[in-house]
């Protein structure tokens, strides 16, 4: 096997140094009756054979569908320079930067990532990353429970149902209760119901912007309401939209979370992704996960270290703010390189481009007789089409035209059987959108 460097002779030499006759003697502490007698795993293969085999597996998956499927996970362009950096093995074969002096590369990059996300969200501080946008909401909720010492969670139903399901499992298995609040007629958070649910047992209100239905909102008024009852506001965001949209900081939320996949990461069948989390300075000691801080060395040179570690499991054990250890550092690096390449003005241009394509597609799609937009609120890159027939049938037919038309919503929302969530990124051309409109029209 090429991944073991020692030859048989070298192994024999080491055994001789140890005064042993065979490697088996090293395993003498394991009672012999416990040793495995069989292992049903195939014989090892060469790299060439494995490559062919995996290529064949890849070809059994969709490879040439035009993607209008979003739902929080988007088909964005990734500049080649992102991969060029993340494939540098000085980064990807390193461990967590516990030895700061030989980890300045990853530590400085995390500090820069924390800065970039703080600027994007206009929040005070950002951690070094969490697993994904969904578990980031769970961590934010647990953080709010710790800060407020309350246990009731109010969740807007237009927070991604994919994330709400995770939150429901956490709530059922951990120590808090959650209440889902249906949206108002315009597809946005229902102010009245939320106001009536907010009370002095409420730890936090969980919102998403743009929400799962694609509707854009300003939740400043909800943040004010929540704060009046001593509750926190958690807002899940879509980072590309922050090129145009009002930031979580501007809306006075307490914890911003998000899925960072759109920042230079491939869709990769669901992961690895990147959990974003940013908060206000006053809550930093309740924040989960690693944080990098600036400092100096003995000669006064600037350097970076892991800091505020007394929050973390390797020090506080059962009293830690979270059990998280491994995070998504390499994905955070990808996001930082992406945001660097895109830059201050590029991000706004990109957001405008996505929005323009979406507006064009909406205009064209709504020209098809029988199709309506479910909610009339402003949209960013995604919206719900209400069809005259079952959305599943439409999606199924268009798959055979090599179009991934969108996400049928009946699975998540019982009254939305005829609804389909469609998304548009900068990658979709006018030609592709026109083809989609034409094919959809023919298949109703």
């Amino acid at each position: 096997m090429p991944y073991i460097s020692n030859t048989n002779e070298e192994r024999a030499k080491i055994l001789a140094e140890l005064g042993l006759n065979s490697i088996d003697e090293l395993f003498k502490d394991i009672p012999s009756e416990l040793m495995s007698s069989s292992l049903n795993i195939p014989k090892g293969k060469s790299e060439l054979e494995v490559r062919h085999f995996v290529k064949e597996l890849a070809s059994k998956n969709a490879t040439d569908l035009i993607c209008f499927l979003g739902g929080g996970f988007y088909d964005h362009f990734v500049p080649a320079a992102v991969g060029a950096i993340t494939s540098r093995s000085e980064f990807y074969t390193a461990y967590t930067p516990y030895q700061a002096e030989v980890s300045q590369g990853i530590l400085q990059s995390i500090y820069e990532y924390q800065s970039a996300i703080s600027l994007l969200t206009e929040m005070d501080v950002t951690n070094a990353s969490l697993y994904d946008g969904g578990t980031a909401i769970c961590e934010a909720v647990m953080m709010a429970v710790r800060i407020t010492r309350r246990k009731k969670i109010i969740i807007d139903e237009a927070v991604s149902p994919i994330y709400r399901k995770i939150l429901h499992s956490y709530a059922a298995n951990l120590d808090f209760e959650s209440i889902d609040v249906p949206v108002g007629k315009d597809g946005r958070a229902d102010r009245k119901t939320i106001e009536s649910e907010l009370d002095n047992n409420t730890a936090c209100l969980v919102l998403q912007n743009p929400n799962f239905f694609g509707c854009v909102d300003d939740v400043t008024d909800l943040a004010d309401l929540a704060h009046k009852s001593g509750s926190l506001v958690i807002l899940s965001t879509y980072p590309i939209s922050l090129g145009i949209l009002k930031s979580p900081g501007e809306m006075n939320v307490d914890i911003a979370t998000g899925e960072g996949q759109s920042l230079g990461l491939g869709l990769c069948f669901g992961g690895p992704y990147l959990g974003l989390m940013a908060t206000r300075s006053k809550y930093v000691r309740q924040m989960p996960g690693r944080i990098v801080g600036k400092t100096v060395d003995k000669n006064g040179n600037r350097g970076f270290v892991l800091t505020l570690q007394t929050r973390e499991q390797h020090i506080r054990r059962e009293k830690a703010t979270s059990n998280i250890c491994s995070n998504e550092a390499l994905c955070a690096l990808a996001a930082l390189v992406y945001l660097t390449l895109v830059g201050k003005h590029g991000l706004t241009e990109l957001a405008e481009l996505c929005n323009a394509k979406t507006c064009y597609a909406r205009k064209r799609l709504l020209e098809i007789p029988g199709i309506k937009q479910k909610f009339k609120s402003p949209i960013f890159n995604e919206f719900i089409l209400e069809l005259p027939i079952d959305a599943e049938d439409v999606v199924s037919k268009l798959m055979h035209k090599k179009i991934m038309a969108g996400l049928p919503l009946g699975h998540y929302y019982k009254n939305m059987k005829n609804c389909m969530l469609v998304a548009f990124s900068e990658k979709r051309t006018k030609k592709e959108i026109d083809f989609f409109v034409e094919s959809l029209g023919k298949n109703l």
Partner: protein
Amino acid sequence: MKLIFEKSISGKRGVRFPECDVPCTCNIPNELKRKNYAELPEVSELDTVRHFTRLSKHNMGVDTNFYPLGSCTMKYNPKICEEVVLYKGLGDLHPLIPQLPDGNKFTQGALQVLYETSQFLSEITGMAEFTMQPLAGAHGELTGTMMIAAYHASRGQKRKKVIIPDSSHGTNPASAAIAGFEVVSVPSNADGVMDINEFEKVLDKETAAVMLTCPNTLGLFNPQIKKIADRTHEAGGLMYYDGANLNAILGKLKPGDVGFDIVHVNLHKTFGTPHGGGGPGAGPVGVKENLVEFLPISRVVKKTDETYALEYNYPSSIGYIAPFYGNFGVILKAYVYILLVGKEGLARIAENSVLNANYIMKKLKPYYHLPYMRTCMHEFVISAVKQKKNGVRAIDIAKRLLDFGFHAPTVYFPLIVEEAIMIEPTETESKQTLDKFIDIMIKIAKEADKNPEIIKTAPHNLGISRLDELKAVRESNLRWTK
């Protein structure tokens, strides 16, 4: 080195987007727009690439240096694994496709990867079934502890106690606590393993589970492990296996055969997927037959017609713990790794990792205090107590090693050994590398006698000297501002 923000020059661009080929309209009213630009850097592509390439040169990785970081299994990662995740149909596959009508048809290759990896892991660990969803080791622990709670609840019991040895990883008590359990710590005995008498004192009908690594974080195998499992089962509790140290027993011993009921595996440790500077990892969880009903949803199944599908209808499941099917990219790398090393390779991994660890331990014994005089498994712990007499501590030795081009071992863990230095060479390192490392460790031990200052002030050769961690906390600066 300057921050990327400090290199920003107004007007520079790192990427160009296609021209807008549709009318450039915007439907978003001004009151929903942000007031100010996010002050992201303005730099060219070259500026970007040069900045991050230079940063990478201020970083040690397994590819550049020996990295004997105990408990982290910093083995070499085969390059083919990095290649396959970029293949079309894998790296770009949308995770929601299986939820579309007939969606499974368009993801058969990916579902096969998930299914077969879970089968491999079940076979290697002696479990009935695996979920591939947990996104890291600690996430696996949380999933496991949630299942422990669900198991007892299904039997009408609300057991509150999880027993954990004092040498365990910090994530074990942290995960158990988050899942609502009270953590009971059991001391280790003179042989470095959980004291069975102390264990039996705290084991009772309130015990939900016992969480263990095996071999433990001292690199020692507990010969009493079967007895611990039997006692736990007699008391109605479950045995949880923290797979951090699975490398030592691959192909030799299946945790399921010892009596473990739940196992999490760190793919980024044992199965050759790189650590990424702190992540992403993956922490799949396997269970015995009596716990299968509690596994998270969705689950990948193989149908009688040899196709793969996702199933959701499991009423006793703990529910969803991740958005999709786990860190697929990491799982794919582990899958490829298992295909490459195969059945015979797995046992050779364990043998060589244990051989390499014992070799270093034997060679260092005359120079450093060895708290447990036993054959070790894949790692071992020495103590710097001898050197401490000259004012040289474990952290100083760690920093001095950096001067010689070695990454430091894990220090001050496990917590039960004073001035602990935990060394795990892994199977991929050669005798030549081990000999160089041994020579330097001996040199440092000698320096500790003759010239302790040079160790206490290390590192000297890195362009950056020891960093002030206290200042980082005191004058907390966690981001750049304009």
